[in-house]
């Protein structure tokens, strides 16, 4: 209890400092000191890596510094955390367009894409989990209380349907292009046919390109894939950054 009080006190003590830093970053951004603003956002991100707005602002700084690949990286990170935010979505699409990519694949209706990315993956997981818990509790009630089985049946069907929907949705999102993905940082990054310099280079990737990581990284090389192009190969780990 004493520790909790101490931690709470420390958090509240630092709150004005965090706010001060945020204001400073905003002022710096307004004054076009993008590198300095980025450094402050970066510090803020270390303390709270799951804040989509900080990542978005970091992406803005990098975009202003004309570093499109890093801008795509930070926007994509923010998008993973809060895909329904219109600003994050807009800037990610803008930065992707600048690097010759499309946020919405050809032939996909905008509305469908927006629905698919309505929830963050963590939200889908949470909804799947909670519907599963509800399902379990209803089953337990039905097992233990025979006399209420007929009453439990309709909510059980509903909970099972919700669970199935979120489970499938979450599984699809876990395999979407922003999950287990990375952004190429160096222009003309060669794709090798094997994990070593002695293998043939059969394609090169521009900076800012989103790729899927398809295997556990080795010490120097990592296997990546571009599902839309049907490409798969190895690149140096230093050539990309994971989203």
């Amino acid at each position, binding site marked *: 209890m004493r520790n909790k009080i101490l931690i709470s006190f420390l958090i509240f003590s630092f709150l004005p400092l965090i706010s001060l830093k945020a204001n400073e970053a905003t002022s710096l951004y307004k004054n076009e000191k993008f590198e300095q603003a980025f450094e402050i956002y970066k510090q803020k991100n270390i303390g709270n890596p799951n804040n*989509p707005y900080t990542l978005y602002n970091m992406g803005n700084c990098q975009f202003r510094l004309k570093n499109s690949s890093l801008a795509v990286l930070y926007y994509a990170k923010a998008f993973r955390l809060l895909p329904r935010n219109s600003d994050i979505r807009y800037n990610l699409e803008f930065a992707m367009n600048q690097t010759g990519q499309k946020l919405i694949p050809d032939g996909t209706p905008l509305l469908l894409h927006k629905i698919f990315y309505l929830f963050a993956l963590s939200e889908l997981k949470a909804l799947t989990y909670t519907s599963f818990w509800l399902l379990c509790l209803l089953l337990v009630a039905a097992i233990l209380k025979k006399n209420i089985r007929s009453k439990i049946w309709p909510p059980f069907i509903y909970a099972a349907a919700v669970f199935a929907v979120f489970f499938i949705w979450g599984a699809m999102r876990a395999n979407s292009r922003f999950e287990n993905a990375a952004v190429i940082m160096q222009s003309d990054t060669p794709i090798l046919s094997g994990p070593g310099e002695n293998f043939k280079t059969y394609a090169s990737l521009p900076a800012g390109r989103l790729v899927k990581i398809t295997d556990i990284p080795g010490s120097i090389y990592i296997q990546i894939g571009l599902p839309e192009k049907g490409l798969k190969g190895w690149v140096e780990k230093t050539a990309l950054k994971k989203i």
Partner: protein
Amino acid sequence: MSRKEKIGRSAKGGVYKHQASRSQETVTTETTIMKRTKLKKSISCHAAAPPRRRTIVTTIFLTILFSLPLLAKAEMILSASVNKETVAINDTVRLTIAIKSSGRVNDPSIPGMKDFDIYSSGQSQNISFVNGKFSYVLNFSYILTPKHLGKSQIPSIVVFEGNKKRFTSPIDIEVVKPNSNIPPQTVKTLQASPQNEASTEDLIFFTAETDKKSAYINEQIKLSLKFYTAIPLINNPQYSPPKLEGFIAEDLPPIGNGQVNRNGRMYYYNEIKAALFPLDAGTGIINPATINAQVQASSPEYLFGADFFQSFFSGRRGENKQVKSPLLKIKLLPLPEEGKPASFNGAVGDYKVSAMLESTNVKAGEAVNLLLKISGQGNLKTITMPALPELSNFRIYDTVTSLSMNKTNDIVGGEKIFTTIMMPRISGDYTIRPIKFSFFNPKTKTYYEIQTEPLKIKVSKGKAISSSTNYQQNSAMPDYSQIKTIASDIHYILENKKIPLSLKLSEKIASALWLNFTFLLILAGALLFAYINGFRLKNPDLLKSKKAYKKSLKEMREAVKLTDEDRYLDAVSLLHNSLNTFLSAKLRNNIGSLTIKKTIAEIKEKNPNIKAQATEELKNLSDELEMLRFAPSSLDKEKILALIKKYEDTLKFFEKELK
């Protein structure tokens, strides 16, 4: 040679260099680039230049210093060098990457090195203006620690200049064991301090001053950094600006320089000024600025030998000297809340506002520019567009901003023009109401709300009329389908946004995978419970049979209690009933109406392998209980307790046999 004579020599050298550099002129803060030009002019020589020329040079210097990214593009020169090619395994190598460019370049991309651990050790920059061309040199220094013995290599290092990519050549390094005979290498060593009459600290130093000790947010503070030297500098000093905490800075050109007498000693000085603007209330810190210079070391050759030029061409002996300005702290005051107008948006200074329309007579559907000019003294960069009054009959498009700054008398000011594109929808005569702008004047410590004059505009009927418009009552409606996007850009940063609660909560739930297993366990527990319960309901006799022995033991303990209370007959009756219940449960049949013989026969029938001893003992016990029940006068405590003991042993044996 006396100190006075030495100063005289320095001045003489400065004059000579200036006269010889008529065709090529270089202004620099570091040595490196100077080595590439035959003749040069150093900061320490500025004092000898004519005043007018000096002003021009320093103005150029500061202009390019703070506008490096805007310089015209030219070919980039990239080089990498090391201070030693053979290094002991327990030693380090200094890698220097020099980038000479006139355009914006990125920091070098340091690849992963398999042979070395690498640490950054800072960077420096030089600026030069040679034959009418600007260029600057960035030096990035790294410390490399070898990982293994033998031949190692520093791989190519990439530097981007815009989209162009440049590589350095790989450098081979031989890593040897400690205490090996390492061939002599060009490692610079510091000379011993000269034994001057005055300490070096008195002869070369750096000062920092501000014009105020406290300031409001966004109020200008003038910072003056002065570098004094009374001894000759061999190379141009390398300047590292102070790190500012809580401020943003604007340079204040030109660099001042000249001569000054301080405490009876003549000094040359250079002054760099900057305007600081506080970002937030609290304490602002101006960390020390640094100058690294190489000063003339005193030696017998220098003091009594050849003249300055001889030492210049024959290789000089120098001492590296680093001087730092003092750390300054400024109290940063929040803007007062009292009297703050609703239209106040953070502007601090002294401003005027005016507005005009580029055309006052337009057709509906035609664009017209509204120019809002804010001019005065203060940090105009932070000023945002004031809110426009409601213009219901106009469509408002993007606002384009232009900024023109001046720094007259070291006060930052200028004008900012916001050009808003407007398109009248309906014909008529309109008046645009005054646009309000507020600012805080730190001199008077008062908020001011000023406003523009009302603007009148006459809108005549347009040619294009949209049939799908909602304004059908007016024929002057423009064709909205003709509206074109003028430009596109990313959205602005998101300030003070809180993470949605759903996201925070979902992250916690998503991380609690173990809870799923908990619910599964609860489900499994419920299933098990239901199964057991069902089994019990289906097999009540089996359950009774299994519990019979425990129940009998319990009743036996009850019999002991009754015996202690001298209720002997009750105890015997209890044991008798208990035995009947036990046997009924084991045989899953009520034996209350059976004799002991028939009971034993049934036991044998159901359990053919039961030992004869068990049935014999059971018979004895039953008989004894029957006898005592009907002959209560012969009962005493010892007898009862012995009977209870017998009862316990018999049941125990019997239970074992029936299992």
